[in-house]
């Protein structure tokens, strides 16, 4: 335990953005969703209709989890936080658990720290304490926001508390993953596999209304009934999961060599493949993981929606509030929802790929590569091309999955062509998002994280515009809105052409800028 307080001070001084930023963003998501829901379902009748439609759908259960206490506004808010909360909270927990331990160990910080009067086990203990502090910030800010909105006082305490316990449990899992894997990348992959497995397990149990809700921690938040009669076992289970994960992490930390892990490292190839020695081969090798990851999310999302499309359309038809908010052709509404989110995931692919170029430059590896006979113009254009192609591959993979799933569930092959044609409408926003990220990287690689901010807003518009009752002007800041809600509405060809022109100008500006400035490291 020696050195825990010194480490806590160090974490607060050096990692405060990681400790406070995600906590506030998650609290903002919870409070904003609650605010939107409150306006959408103001009367007891509206809440009853919601419970009878959204709350009675196996597709909805599989997607968002079991709806409980849906005749109360708090219960509806919790259901609407739904799958976003189920995925984002453990992801933040993993970021904290791994980011405060293995990532710093990889950077050499822990070597330096533990050469002083700091025990090896102090590192995960201090990370656990500051991580818990982060979740307390989340719970208290959420509680204050919900209370200010006029939600039930007890629920304002219990709902954020059970979400914080959920996050703490995954911070513990992150600490354990950070001890098991030798690198932070391996730890994040291990954590992501657990999150996806937990979500799929929960979707199966909840979708089929099985009784084994204990199987996945993602079922436990609803099982606690935070807006009804409080049930203790889920809270205790979260604490138990965290305690076990932390105990194993501490046992490993006390025994392993610094820099090593428990999972074995395989030896790789002694020589590079022929393609790896080319700019395109190198760019693809370094970015294919993120491309596969985002594309897999898009395909899973679209397949799930496609298989449930008919039922979701029925829910929208039966819920007048939803029908009024979303439009009068429910099956097309489902396609729009799927394709806009797929377009945003495709934008994420593009940003991730082009951002990697900036990361390479900051790590001095671009300088090493450009010491060879490849011009910087060629390297830049090839990398930008890979970013655009990868982004479009994500978009069309999702659209293909959506069309095939709808074909399988509905029996109409026409949906396949419709979804692929509709995806074409979203090519312009996807390319623009990617190219603007490229322009930021070309200006300075330090700006690459800024590219994620507008995409975050486009995601809020795409997912929650109705729930948050966003004004039209703020929705139109998203290029995904500007092209029209295809296939529900016809493509706005003028907007599409303007977006393509804007992307062309941004691409030219990025190329000129990268060609004329010094590399930041080399």
């Amino acid at each position, binding site marked *: 335990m020696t050195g825990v307080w010194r480490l806590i001070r160090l974490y607060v001084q050096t990692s405060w953005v990681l400790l406070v930023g995600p906590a506030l963003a998650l609290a903002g998501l919870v409070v904003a969703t609650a605010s939107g829901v409150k306006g959408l379902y103001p009367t007891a009748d509206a809440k009853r209709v919601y419970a009878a439609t959204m709350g009675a759908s196996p597709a909805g259960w599989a997607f968002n989890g079991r709806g409980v206490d849906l005749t109360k506004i708090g219960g509806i808010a919790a259901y609407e936080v739904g799958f976003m909360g189920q995925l984002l909270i453990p992801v933040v927990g993993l970021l904290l658990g791994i980011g405060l331990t293995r990532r710093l160990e*990889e950077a050499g910080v822990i070597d330096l720290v533990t050469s002083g009067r700091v025990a090896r086990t102090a590192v995960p203990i201090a990370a656990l304490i500051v991580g818990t502090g982060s979740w307390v910030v989340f719970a208290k800010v959420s509680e204050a926001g919900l209370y200010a909105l006029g939600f039930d006082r007890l629920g304002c305490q219990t709902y954020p508390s059970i979400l914080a316990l959920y996050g703490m449990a995954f911070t513990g899992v992150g600490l354990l993953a950070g001890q098991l894997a*030798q*690198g932070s*990348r391996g730890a994040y992959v291990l954590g992501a596999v657990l999150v996806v497995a937990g979500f799929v397990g929960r979707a199966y149990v909840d979708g089929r209304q099985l009784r084994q809700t204990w199987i996945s921690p993602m079922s436990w938040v609803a099982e606690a009934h935070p807006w009804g009669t409080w049930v203790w076992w889920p809270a205790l289970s979260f604490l138990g999961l965290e305690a076990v994960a932390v105990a194993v992490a501490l046992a490993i930390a006390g025994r392993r060599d610094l820099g090593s892990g428990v999972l074995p*490292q395989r*030896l*790789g*190839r*002694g*020589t*590079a493949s022929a393609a*790896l*020695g*080319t*700019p395109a081969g*190198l760019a693809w*090798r*370094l970015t294919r993981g993120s491309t596969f990851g985002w594309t897999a999310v898009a395909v899973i999302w679209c397949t799930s929606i496609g298989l449930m499309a008919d039922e979701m359309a029925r829910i929208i038809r039966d819920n007048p509030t939803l029908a009024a908010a979303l439009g009068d052709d429910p099956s097309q509404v489902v396609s729009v929802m799927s394709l806009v989110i797929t377009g945003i995931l495709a934008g994420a692919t593009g940003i991730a790929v082009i951002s990697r170029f900036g990361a390479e430059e900051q*790590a*001095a*590896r671009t*300088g*090493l*590569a*450009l*010491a*060879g*006979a*490849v*011009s*910087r113009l*060629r390297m830049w254009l090839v990398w930008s091309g890979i970013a655009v192609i990868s982004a479009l591959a994500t978009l069309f993979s999702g659209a293909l999955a959506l069309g095939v799933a709808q074909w399988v569930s509905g029996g109409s092959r026409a949906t396949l062509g419709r979804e692929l044609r509709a995806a074409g409408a979203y090519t312009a926003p996807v390319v623009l998002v990617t190219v603007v990220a490229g322009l930021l990287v070309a200006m300075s690689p330090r700006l690459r994280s800024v590219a994620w901010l507008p995409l975050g807003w486009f995601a809020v518009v795409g997912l929650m515009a109705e729930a948050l009752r966003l004004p039209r002007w703020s929705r139109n800041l998203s290029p995904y809105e500007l092209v029209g809600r295809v296939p529900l509405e016809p493509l706005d060809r003028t907007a599409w052409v303007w977006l393509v022109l804007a992307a062309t100008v941004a691409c030219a500006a990025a190329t000129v800028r990268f060609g*004329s*400035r*010094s*590399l930041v490291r*080399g």
Partner: protein
Amino acid sequence: MSKSLSESTVIRARHLVKRFGCVTALDGLDLTVECGEVHGFLGPNGAGKSTTIRAILGQLRLTSGALTVLGRDPWREAPVLHRRLAYVPGDTVLWPGLTGGECLDVIGRLQGTQDRKRRNELVERFELDPRRRARTYSKGNRQKVALVAALSTDAELLLLDEPTSGLDPVMEERFLTTIREVQTDGRTVLLSSHILSEVEALCDRVTIIRAGRTVVTDTVDALRQDGTSFDEVFLAHYRDAS
């Protein structure tokens, strides 16, 4: 090896100035490296050695001054030039997900004149395990990857920026042997180093710089003609310039 005999001066730098905002990294630096010589490039930390090498690579746009490398402008003609030179950075950062063997092949192939046989010989000589992921390498092993990648090419000019940092004494000795072979081949080396014994053992001529300016350029023998050690020569010039 494709060496152009008509180019007797490989690097010609006159009054180089490079400013980063209000910081002046190069303040009128002069440097001349002749064909076939091993040229030592010395100076304290922050003197501008790495900045000069990055300018020679065409990775930095100079504020003013004239620089030619193998008769070409490195900023405008970098790709053509880079086929004729190879570079070892002072602190090599590799792609952590690739193996050491993949990293040195990537660097070698992007340079364009990698000799596979020579590459395999050097992997053996520097006792490098090419199947391990770069993220598991020590600083010395990362440096070996960059060295093997550069030395296995057919480059006429080698730009070595503190190439032996992190290497153990046995590997340092093998590095000296390898550079002597390179010298025998008639290739040109610009060697930036803080290890004065290494510079003394390898270099024909030396340029000492400080605060972005050239303090002196001469042969090693001329610099220590009055019987003083090379360490004392360096320190004397360092003191005179400050």
